[in-house]
């Protein structure tokens, strides 16, 4: 059991034990899951890196830290986390939104990277879920429950994240006219994006393997693959599909409009919003029970509901 650091205890004191309260991160996904109930008091989570252990491949960081700032600090040791970088987006915000990075194919989903979370409960006390090690099955998995919960079960103040090595060589390439499926044989592809016509690939790995994948992509391409700075412009709405649904967007998913699909993952960025996804009544009921047990007075991030995520 740990002594909590001052920033965390100060955060808990600010959250207190009464009245509706929400956490302001970078406001990059502010209305995800519904608008904040009017009159809700806003607090900010503490910021700063507490401890980076490159040899352990973990980093302890406060939730209010911008992800870009965290990644700059890790880059010095050739590491990063699976969290998505959005201008101004914070570690806590990324975890609570639960949306994966554009490089999920290579980095994995956000949920797998959270090893320990210290958070303020609805009653104002600080709880800790998970462990300080890279492996742990001691008790029920509060970390998985918190990721994507939009701060409705607890307000995260400090986390321990798994880090991973940055590839020896990393390149974004635009591959005109390439079909998505054959590109999946590129083992160094940490991201494959397809807009129905062209493909973009983010290759990350050892130089020899990246070169091999580049020649593979050249064969699929109608013109030579060209180096680009990053992914194409992504349309604003996020769809969650199975990988094969995402691959079928090309054959005219009119409702989506312009789209960029994450090949092999199933996230699709589209100009039109995804229609509401049906929720089994039993699952809806379970979600309500969780909210009731963890936040009986409904004071944490009122107005937000992960069931209403697009």
């Amino acid at each position, binding site marked *: 059991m740990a002594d909590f650091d001052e920033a965390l205890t100060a955060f808990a004191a600010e959250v207190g034990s009464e009245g509706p309260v929400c956490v302001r991160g970078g406001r990059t996904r502010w209305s995800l899951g519904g608008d904040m109930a009017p009159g809700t008091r806003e607090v900010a989570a503490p910021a700063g890196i507490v401890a980076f252990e490159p040899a352990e491949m973990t980093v302890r960081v406060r939730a209010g830290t911008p992800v870009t700032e965290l990644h700059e600090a890790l880059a010095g040791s050739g590491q990063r986390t699976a969290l998505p970088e959005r201008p101004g987006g914070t570690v806590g915000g990324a975890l609570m939104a639960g949306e994966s990075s554009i490089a999920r194919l290579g980095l994995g989903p956000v949920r*797998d990277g959270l090893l320990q979370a210290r958070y303020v409960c609805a009653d104002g006390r600080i*709880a800790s*879920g998970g462990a300080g090690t890279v492996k742990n099955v001691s008790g029920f998995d509060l970390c998985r429950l918190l990721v994507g919960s939009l701060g409705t079960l607890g307000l995260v103040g400090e986390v321990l994240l798994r880090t991973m090595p940055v590839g020896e060589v990393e390149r974004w390439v635009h591959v005109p006219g390439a079909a998505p499926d054959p590109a999946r044989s590129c*083992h160094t592809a940490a991201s494959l994006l397809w807009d129905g016509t062209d493909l973009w690939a983010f290759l990350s790995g050892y130089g*020899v393997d990246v070169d091999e994948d580049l020649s593979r992509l050249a064969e699929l391409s109608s013109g030579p693959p060209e180096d680009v700075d990053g992914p194409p412009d992504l349309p604003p709405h996020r769809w969650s599909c199975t990988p094969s649904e995402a691959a079928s967007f090309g054959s005219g998913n009119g409702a989506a409009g312009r789209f960029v699909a994450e090949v092999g993952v199933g996230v699709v960025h589209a100009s039109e919003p995804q229609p509401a996804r049906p929720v089994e009544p039993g*699952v809806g009921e379970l979600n309500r029970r969780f909210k009731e047990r963890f936040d009986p007075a409904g004071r944490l991030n009122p107005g937000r509901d992960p069931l209403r995520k697009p």
Partner: protein
Amino acid sequence: MVRVVARTLAEATRRVLGSRRRTGRGPAAAEPAQAGDAALAADLEAAIGADRVRSDAAARYLASRDASIYREGNAGPVCYPDSTADVVACVQVAARHGRAVSPRGAGTGLAGGAAPLGRPVVLSMTRMDKLLEIDVDNGVAWVQPGIVNLDLTRALAPHGVHYAPDPSSQAACTIGGNVANNSGGPHCLAYGVTSAHVLAVEVVLSDGSVVTLGDLSAEPVGYDLRGAFVGSEGMCGIATAVAVRLTPDPPAVRTMLLCFDDVSDAAATVSAIIADGIVPAAIEMMDQRCVRAVEDFAQAGYPEDAAAVLLVEVDGPAGGVSIASERIAGIARRYQAMSVRTAADEDERARLWKGRKSAFGAVANVMPDYYLHDTVVPRTRLVEVLESIYEIVDRYDLIVLNVFHAGDGNLHPILAYDSRVPGADERVHAAGREIITMSLDMGGALTGEHGIGVEKREHMSRMFSEVDLDQQARLRASFDPYCRMNPGKVLPSAHSCSDIAALRASDASGVWG
């Protein structure tokens, strides 16, 4: 002592289970069926068929224990459901009789998770062992919970994919048990434990309703309830179907055996490999005593004069595999490795792994009893941790064999002993307690893959505060407000539903009393 070489992994595992069942703390026969159970059994039989319910002493005896040393389990009627509908029916009948339900898979659990407390209805899930659907395009397969881990892997092989978590017990343990314990295995270092490989689970809740947690889309809506369910040790509901993630077989694999004449050099090599930014598929370590036992048992070709060996596997595209393995060999030599051997072909690779996977079976040849511990420590501190373990077991005059998932700091010290020697049990428990304390003091965790069960239930408060445990209890109660699913496990008594009438019927004390 007769030495028999187990020819297959399955045989090795069965031998271990067999020896665990015969030894340990004098297994008492299951208590005679109680009068009230006759009506319960009759209702269960009416619900799923007389041939699917057993109340005889033999069936209840087998269903009362797992592979842990815990011997206080006491099963009520044992049901063998064939379908989700059967499971629902059993749960409803049990609820009508005010009785709890405990699911079990193969009973290979090492923490007493499947040991029923309070004479619950036991649901043995082993008949629900079908592979329902393989969907290679979406990288997913739906399976029933009773399917054996290795059978799934074998069935997937022709498709060029596999199910990544590979517990050493994979020849016997079930996917349902893996999900309940969030099990790991050597290859979880690079690929992640069970939780990262479960996309959705169909679950029967304690009120008999059926829900599907998670789905096959990239980001399911709502709370991550499948994530909350994985690792819940049978206490949140019964998994009746599981959608597992399929991992493409890597294009290249290289397996290396690194041998050292000093345990500390081997441990330092592990830390140095991780620090170098290499993520091997697996890094397993065995110390000399373990190597010798394995050689006697399985002839894996490990050098018996080595103080420690590391089994390291790298996989991925061919170029990177050869670069990474050369870097690993370089690190090993820097730490004075006696030899660095790379498996020349698939045969040699299989033999090297067979040694590792039969380590527990081999222990049975060293002493009649063993207690396998499972804690986690920061992987940068392996050298001092191993020194502490040797110091502790020396002080208690015990034998320890170390074989463990070194890459993620997951220790498995095996205390081998003979429970017929007066005082041996006490020494084993005292040493075990010290190993747990030492691991926690180093910033570690109580368990890395075997779970809490009853074995470590009362240790939970050493790792978690009252607030933390209260939050965990809320997670459990959100799934099962009635505390009817596998009660009495994981949470220390103050936080569990120890008040339910059913539980009072039996002695629910933990291993440590």
